[in-house]
């Protein structure tokens, strides 16, 4: 995407104002409307699809496989595939490694454990079909929704197999399944969410559009956990903007408060989606 110098200066000037004017009039912490569906792939344990109003779209499928816990280096595997982008490109690696680390850290310790020997391994595959702006936001949101909709079948065989290894047997009734990370009190686990904010001058903008990214000084990547706490990693990333000076340290403070004020609303909106039923995914 190319922009003319006049457009760039118009956009920057508007966004640099003390009370900035975004090209679509949104406030700094306002997201664009999203469209989402969950649990639409019957062959996956969990799935979700998120689409933005500018055509960005991400589909996430979660599959669980029974493995011997001892032989796996990690029980979570995240694979991100962005259409038209090489698998080893930095955008893909950054996305998958960030999500992998954070989800692994937040998942309750025994959520995947089946028996002393066996355990589930989660394969989270994100497919970004099209993405005009940075894919972090929608991939993270879709992953959140997919994990929230992920259910694991109920184990009917014994959990104690330390002596005699026995392949686990599951209940065929899907209604008996439990949500991932659900504990005895039927409290559901919530995975972390990441978002990218664009920095222009002294201002920060959530859910930046392509043009906002293009004129940005940089982006700040940060996440929050289910209880609305800001979590690591917090990282300054490149959003494709041309201006690469340093950032004022106050911006990080601003980012914190911006995240804290938006997180509850985003979580609430996301959780509301899981309760709505839809027949088709489009």
């Amino acid at each position, binding site marked *: 995407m190319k922009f003319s110098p006049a457009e760039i200066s118009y956009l920057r000037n*508007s966004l640099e104002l003390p009370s900035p004017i975004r090209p679509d009039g949104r406030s700094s912490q306002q997201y664009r409307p999203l469209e989402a569906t969950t649990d639409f792939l019957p062959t996956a344990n969990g799935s979700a699809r998120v689409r933005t109003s500018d055509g960005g779209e991400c589909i996430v499928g979660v599959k669980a496989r029974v493995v011997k816990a001892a032989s796996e280096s990690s029980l979570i595997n995240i694979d991100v595939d962005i259409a038209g982008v090489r698998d080893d490109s930095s955008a893909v690696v950054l996305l998958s490694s960030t999500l992998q680390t954070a989800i692994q850290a937040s998942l309750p310790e025994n959520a995947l454990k089946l028996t002393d020997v066996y355990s589930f391994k989660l394969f989270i595959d994100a497919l970004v079909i099209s993405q005009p702006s940075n894919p972090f936001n929608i991939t993270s949101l879709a992953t959140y929704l997919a994990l929230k909709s992920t259910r694991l079948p109920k184990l009917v065989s014994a959990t104690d197999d330390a002596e005699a290894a026995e392949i686990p047997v599951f209940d065929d009734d899907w209604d008996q399944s439990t949500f991932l990370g659900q504990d005895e009190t039927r409290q559901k686990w919530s995975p972390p969410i990441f978002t990218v904010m664009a920095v222009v001058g002294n201002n920060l903008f959530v859910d930046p559009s392509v043009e906002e990214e293009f004129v940005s000084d940089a982006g700040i990547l940060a996440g929050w956990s289910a209880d609305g706490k800001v979590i690591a990693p917090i990282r300054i990333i490149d959003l494709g903007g041309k201006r690469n000076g340093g950032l004022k340290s106050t911006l990080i403070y601003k980012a914190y408060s911006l995240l804290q004020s938006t997180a509850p609303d985003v979580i609430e909106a996301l959780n509301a989606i899981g309760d709505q039923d*839809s027949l088709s995914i489009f």
Partner: protein
Amino acid sequence: MGVISITVPQGARAEVANEEDLIYEDADSDSDVEMREFNDNEEENIGGSLYVANDLVTPGELVTEETVWMRGHGTYTTVNDKTYSSVAGTITKVNKLLSVTPIRGRYSPEIGDHIVGRITEVGQKRWKVDIGAKQDAVLMLGSINLPGGILRRKSESDELQMRQFLKEGDLLNAEVQALFSDGAASLHTRSLRYGKLRNGYFLSIPASLVIRQKNHVYRLPGNVDLILGVNGYVWLSKRTSTGPSGADNVTITRLEEEAGLEIYSDKNEEIPGSIREAIARYSNCIRALVYKEVGINESRLITAYEASLVYENAGELVDNEVKDAIAAEVIAES
């Protein structure tokens, strides 16, 4: 105003309503192992008659058996001289010319169209311009106003400094001057109403939603000018005295005076916040009309803008429900 709105897909709701249309099982058609007869679709109305205009035809459908028609776009014929449709669309007849206009498709340029475009490539004596069509358009060095007036001859130094006039990424508005045999457009900007664009904001909408008019430059309330390119590329800018819109009837003398190098300047003028806000509001109004697939012209846009003033903050207009409301008001007005 909420921070985020997440909804289930529209399509899902529509489907509940028309489930019959979408779900189909071949359970009843006890088709034999015999190969089927060609064309056994009772919905199709094949015969000597011609479909009434605005009736929908789909690819491969027989449009007419009559041989008197000239076949235009969206049709094809076989050696049997029958005319078939090659796209999904509506039949249009102009005199003896029969064509099918596709429901959707890229902008296809026509001579005289006022368009907005973006330079993609600077070449030998010509620029390539993205106009949202099937191919990039061509703008010849000889088809632009050179600094110093219309009467100046094009020189070799002009060829060497083409990037000083227009470079990759630059936006311009122009007129389609001619079409090449493969359908690509050739543009010109040899009038002061055309040329490089600054002092504003660009957005792109489906060309099919632009209602063709005599004039595509609008002066809108709030000191905002709009160039609604026939190709669906839109430019919203601050109103300036010498801007493209102010120069409808320019004499050659004035042209000469004004065609200084500043017509290729990259510098914006001072733009007050109120105008920036108005531009943001207009762009959201346009997006609202696009969202509901409402054709856009000057009066509708003004109606939408006035309707939008109920919402104090332009940011509220990104919400789908607000878009619905605005579009509904526009439809009601017209």
